[in-house]
């Protein structure tokens, strides 16, 4: 499973159960459209930290970094210091 797909599975299962992971576009605005509410954000960040083994809690991240699946994936990649494009 690709990393973006794993992110999509988590987000749809947790916050939009009627949606299949493939229906969630990479650039869909999760924040403006209320899929990920402010109270959910901490939960999402905790999951990402665990799943991708990155330390997000102490990192300099803002809600903007979690606006779309694409930005989430980029944020994780940057934190790893891996400047590769999304797989």
């Amino acid at each position: 499973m690709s990393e973006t797909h794993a992110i999509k599975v988590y987000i749809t299962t947790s916050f939009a159960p009627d949606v299949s992971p493939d229906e969630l576009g990479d650039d869909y605005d999760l924040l403006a459209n209320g899929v990920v509410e402010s109270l959910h954000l901490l939960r999402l960040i905790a999951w990402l930290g665990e799943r991708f083994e990155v330390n997000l809690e102490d990192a300099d991240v803002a809600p903007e970094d979690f606006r779309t699946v694409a930005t989430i994936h980029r944020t994780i990649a940057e934190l790893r210091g891996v400047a590769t494009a999304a797989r």
Partner: protein
Amino acid sequence: MWSSDLLRAVRAHAGGERTAVYDRGRAWSYRQLWETARGVAGELAAVGVVPGRPVLVNAKKSAGAVALVLGCGIAGVPAVLVSVDLGADAVELLVERTGSTHVLGVDVEPEPGAVVGLRARATGVAVAEAMPGDPPLVLTTSGSTGAPKVVPLSRVGVERFTDWAATTFGIGAGTVVLNYAPLNFDLTLLDIWATLVAGGSVVLVDPDRAADGRHLAELVAAHQVEVVQAVPLCLRLLAAQEQRFESVRQVITTGDVLPSAVLATFPTVFPNAAVHNLYGCTETNDSFLHTVTDFDTTAPLPVGRPIDGVRALVLDPDGTEILGAGRGELLVSTPFQADGYLDPDLTAARFVTGVAGHDGVFYRTGDIVRRDADGLLHLDGRDDFHVKVRGVRTNLQEVEHVLDQHPDVSEVAVVAIPDLEAGLRLHAAVRVDSDINSLALRAHCAKSLPRTAIPSSFEIQQSALPRTSTGKVDRNAISRSHQEARKAHV
């Protein structure tokens, strides 16, 4: 121009180096805040604002945004404050309604005292006439509709309010006050504007970190905050940190029902604080205050008694005044209230005169209250369609209306579901004629609703919604089946 009281005060404080605002770890002195505000006023003149004609301020809360509002005052243009979560369509509607010549924001957060990175978009609306009454600030109710109500505040009302707030909660030179609410909420009249008039220091909570209890606790401890006014959500997050906030002298809960389990922790969490329940609304500002004496109660806090100068009436459905104990709609007349909405038709419906033989203008709150034998008032809810979601007043019917306008939607019901974290959250049951999913419906809602009014969950089906025996959509059944499904899921 506007609220000369506030501008005079900030300018007077600008002589010293006292801190006006703490924002994201940086301290802004009154001198720096004033200099940035003056810079804004200069830029506003350059982009062609017209004195007396309103501008729409659509800025995320920050020290730069506070300076922007002050700069509007110096430039003599009424600032219409809107929610940054407002959809683009709703912003355009407000521009038209208010006749705002520009939409303003802060592009780049300035260094304290430096020139703000002003973002100004000319709207092209015809400059017709100045907003009546030279309002010091224009607030917009956070209503869930695509058309927030526009409330131009009264200058004398704001001056009376900042005086009252400073006296009642002991806000003076150097007092440190936490600001949790967004800039367009009336709560800021207390925690930002009254504090600046008094020469105190405002600690701004970064809206991006407002759900992070650990961060909130660090702010209160680091700045030795003395006054906290916030919706229960913030107080619950603070209480959950299991810290003692010794510096806090006044805790003011407002905007929603405080869970009794949270209240019970206050003597430990805020050992040196008086705790108050404050009731008010954008149109009239605060009208009732209750100072808590019993922390071990399961009953919801009363809204208490009218504050000095406030008159309150309880009316039964026939419009007859209830004297003594009883239940009915609350009407208030406060020294702080607005003269009305910008829209005279709305004003006529809510700001009423000649009520039960009383002089003056009363505001119909729409809240149902119960007066007990001791004269204390208790909130008994609103009519069925008005709820509070994360402190924001939301009309379920308006959310339904927006969803109903989507071409694929044939039936819709939106219900409020109790939620441990948020208090209440919205759930939408929708009947559709296509395979549209919740992502598309959310994007549709986001165009004209604030974020708090976008349902948290959707149930999408192609069959009919359940109905009661009288043929109405059965909201109770929808609410029940959703909660049962969630329990099974957990």
